[in-house]
């Protein structure tokens, strides 16, 4: 995963540029430009369609918690959506990152070779399950069994406000959505971490073992520092999916417009789920307001990625 400085033509000896080189160069430049154009077009579309709803909103778009874009005067805001989106995604990362790293370490360093291959295959298969399946499974299979855990958290860890549950209802919560999201992003994190750990130079591993390190010490001193940047970027890719996941969350959550820090209680809503739930019946201003919320999600995702890039860039100085 360590990024190498791109090789420029000047560094290759020989000045004559062949036709094939030119064509290939054109293709790669074209591909790069297309990505930028697509991103630009999405941003422009969101901004263009969102503008009408900004101008007639009678509430503060950023702090209002209710969503009545089609009433007169329109009144809507993203506070509850932003809260739910971030909480569900962070909670998912809290579970998925340690488990994902653990799985990939097990596959890379502990598992017998045959088991490792099968496990890696199974985890990659998890990524191919459609999200509606995760949603329905979460709703019908996982949720009935999560009540006990949520109740235990509330009873014994209730001093921590986020686990407190005053309603004695433990279903359709951000907690359950977070667990399902964690399972959904696990393959992304695990697969990339595995590739990163594979890149650790064999000499580093052998050197640490030769110095008398146990396997755990080898992982702690040679593997994890080397793979840190890659693992962070794996986590960020996973976070991107968790932030944008739509239908699984829409099926599970109780979808209340409320900022409730008790995450085991029914409720919560996310940007993407709200768009899916409201789009079909929205009036003209409602559509515009939903796109405005999509614009916010777009900005949040972009900034998360930017932060991740900067972390990786800074870490690189230490690892290389």
């Amino acid at each position, binding site marked *: 995963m360590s990024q190498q400085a791109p090789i420029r033509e000047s560094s290759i000896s020989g000045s004559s540029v062949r036709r094939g080189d030119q064509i290939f160069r054109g293709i790669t430049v074209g591909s790069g430009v297309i990505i930028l154009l697509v991103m630009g077009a999405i941003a422009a579309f969101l901004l263009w369609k969102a503008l009408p709803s900004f101008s007639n909103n009678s509430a503060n778009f950023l702090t209002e918690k*209710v969503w009545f874009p089609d009433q007169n005067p329109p009144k809507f805001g993203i506070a509850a959506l932003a809260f739910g989106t971030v909480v569900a995604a962070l909670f998912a990362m809290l579970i998925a990152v340690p488990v994902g790293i653990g799985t990939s370490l097990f596959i890379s360093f502990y598992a017998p070779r045959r088991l490792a291959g099968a496990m890696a295959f199974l985890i990659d298969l998890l990524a191919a399950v459609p999200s509606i399946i995760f949603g329905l499974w979460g709703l019908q299979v996982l949720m009935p069994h999560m009540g006990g855990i949520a109740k235990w958290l509330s009873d014994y860890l209730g001093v921590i406000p986020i686990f407190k549950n005053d309603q004695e209802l433990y279903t359709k919560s951000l907690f359950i959505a977070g667990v399902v999201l964690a399972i959904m992003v696990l393959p992304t994190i695990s697969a990339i971490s595995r590739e990163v750990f594979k890149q650790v130079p064999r000499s580093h591993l052998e050197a640490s073992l030769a110095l008398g390190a146990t396997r755990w010490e080898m992982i702690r001193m040679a593997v994890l520092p080397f793979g840190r940047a890659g693992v962070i970027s794996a986590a960020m890719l996973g976070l991107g999916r968790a932030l944008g996941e739509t239908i699984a969350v*829409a099926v599970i959550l109780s979808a209340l417009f409320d900022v409730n820090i008790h995450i085991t209680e*029914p409720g919560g809503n996310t940007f993407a789920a709200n768009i899916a*739930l*409201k789009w079909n*019946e929205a009036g003209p201003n*409602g559509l515009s307001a939903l796109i405005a919320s999509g614009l916010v999600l777009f900005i949040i995702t972009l900034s998360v990625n930017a932060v991740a890039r900067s972390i990786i860039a800074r870490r690189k100085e230490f690892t290389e």
Partner: protein
Amino acid sequence: MKFTRSAVAAVAIASTLALSACASESASPSASGSAGSGLTGSLKASGSSAQKNAMQEWINAFQTTNSGVTIDYQANGSGAGIQDFNNSQTSFAGSDSALKPEEATAASTRCAGGTAINIPMVGGAIALAFNVAGVDSLTLNPKTAAGIFSGAITKWNDPAIAALNAGVTLPAATIAQFHRSDSSGTTDNFTKWLLATAPDAFAFAGGKDWVAPGGQGAKGSDGVAAGVSSTPNSIGYMELSFVMSKGLKAASIDNGGGAVEATSDNAAKTIAAATVKGTGNDLALNIDRKIADGSAYPVVLVTYEITCETGLAAADSALVKAFLTYTASDAAQGALAASGYVPITGDLLTKVRAAIAAIA
């Protein structure tokens, strides 16, 4: 792999047979043209998902008798359906509510100066399905329903519920209330009923989005039905067809004239008693949600077909007219009850047929 000569011959014969079968099939409509209508073409429509299953059955039946016609009804929601219609992408829209004034303006532009009309076509009953062990029948009135769905009544053995259900042993359990988390005409009509009949007990805004606090939201009537059937001591509102398909029990409603069971027949009486508020052939309805007839189930919704009285392209107009004439026929309306819908009956049906006859 080796192909034997006989296998090749068999394939050749089979494909010849298939080809001739195709040929005879495509020839048959013109041969039996006198029996059918001779209509050809395709018709696009979209909108309300509440009438999706009724539309599906009607389209199948209509296409069987008029094999030259293809009809496509996309159940993408009432709001999206009206948008599609106003953008001239479809020839009629299915909607859970009649056109609002601002939508009507856009619709008459789409009708090239003609009027867009609302034609009530498919009725529905909104049932309060419950899942309480040991309770087989339950009666609620507007006040207790509003109390349950606003969070004021939290226990099944609340005195207000017990007073309506003499002889029924109600548990001391907490009520788990389910509502829709997505925007829907079902929520709109249910809250309209609560606001009309128990405004003191339900102090929240109505509309397509559920806004009262508490309870649990689920996506779609199927989501609510699944929630109720899997959660003990629960109650939720949903279209009658989901009560039937999930094998749930629905509460009887006492609107003041005695408890009325949630059945298609009882709901049809409320819809037949509705008054027309539209003018001319626009049959937008005013439903009397306070109806206190001892045999009329009051929590109903009516879905409309919205199309142009005049102003559609001639080919589209003929198809819309033929299809809606069929859907308003006794055969088509009579088939509704079996799938959990509510037919349009009586004088209203006569008006519906007159409005369709005027489409040009």
